[in-house]
């Protein structure tokens, strides 16, 4: 989506550049004609074309500006959402007591890399990664990769919904335990 969004301003800018170069050549030629024969119908026509070209470029520049501004707003919103999610994940990893290596593996797993890909990125054997993943799942108390990923997505999906009680059962159980000790909220 962002990729497609970036293509549009790039195309606009490219067209603008071509227009600009063409306009300069045309203006140069029109000026030469004007010097040769001022006020000839030909010159009047060329002057009109120059005005049209410049106007078109003005509109193009304005559109480019608008497109870039819109893109920026979207990017910021996305970065904020991403940053917040990353924070949530990091604090949860801390709460689970993951080691630095496990954190990295956990992040890569959440990003959708499979065992051999993670092993490749980290430069370790597949078996090592598999063992680390198993430890991560154990610490998080989940059955496997799908549940591990769902752990973070679940919060996002529940947000703003009139949450049915059964869905939040594991979470509220956790919270119920920590609610006994005030000031020690589990987020």
């Amino acid at each position: 989506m962002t990729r497609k969004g970036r293509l549009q301003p790039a195309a606009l800018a490219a067209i603008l550049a071509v227009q600009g170069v063409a306009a300069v050549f045309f203006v140069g030629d029109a000026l030469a004609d004007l010097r040769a024969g001022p006020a000839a119908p030909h010159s009047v026509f060329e002057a009109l074309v120059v005005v049209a070209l410049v106007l078109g470029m003005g509109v193009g520049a304005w559109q480019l500006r608008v497109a870039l501004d819109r893109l920026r707003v979207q990017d910021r919103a996305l970065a904020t959402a991403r940053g917040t999610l990353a924070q949530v994940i990091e604090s949860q990893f801390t709460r689970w007591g993951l080691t630095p290596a496990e954190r990295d593996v956990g992040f890569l797993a959440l990003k959708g890399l499979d065992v051999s890909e993670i092993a490749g990125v980290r430069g370790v054997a597949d078996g090592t990664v598999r063992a680390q993943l198993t430890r991560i799942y154990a610490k998080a108390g989940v059955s496997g990769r799908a549940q591990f990923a769902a752990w973070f997505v679940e919060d996002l999906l529940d947000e703003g919904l009139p949450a049915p009680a059964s869905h939040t059962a594991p979470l509220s159980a956790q919270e119920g335990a920590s609610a006994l000790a005030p000031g020690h909220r589990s987020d």
Partner: protein
Amino acid sequence: MARPVASGRRGGAVAPPDPWDPLIRITHWGIALAVVSNGLLNKPGGTVHVWIGWAVMALLAMRLIWGVIGPAEARFSAFPPDPRAAMSHLVDLVRGRPREHMSHNPAGALMVYALWASLAVVTVTGLIMTDGQSPVTIAEQKAAVAAGDWSMLAKSAGKEDDEGGLSEAAGELHEGAANLMLILAMIHVAGVVVESRALRRNLVRPMVTGRGKGR
């Protein structure tokens, strides 16, 4: 491997845009290409040389207009010429701790203005040298001369006598400013390399495609 985490954290930090906006990128590489080809490759004073000169005039004009109406970091107000800030940035750079800036860093900004100024001088003197004739006219003249019509040549020769001094001075200036620009361009490239190393970040990529995988 810790990169995904780091990039997530850097989200709100002050840094130049990644990627730069497309108009900046197109004019940047268009001008770079033109400088290399007109300064080093093609025949000075040839038709191609003049064509490229006119195209570069358009690119420079567009970038300058964009400096007024473009997005925040493209505007002149985002990188005012400030020699003192440039010096302190260079000092920081030597110490290996350059600060991030929202647009061009102060030293880079000075370089930008120096390059634009020398480019403008080269373009204007080039126009004076060719008597302001558009490449279209020049090409037509050359075609006419090649076809055996020497009258065009006589006309332009007569003109040159009147403005011989001016044209010659323009020629000297054209060459001097062009050489200066080539030197500045080399310093510019060196500066980008040094700054990229100091910031541990590829500064060229935002000027080409940006973050690559659309992230």
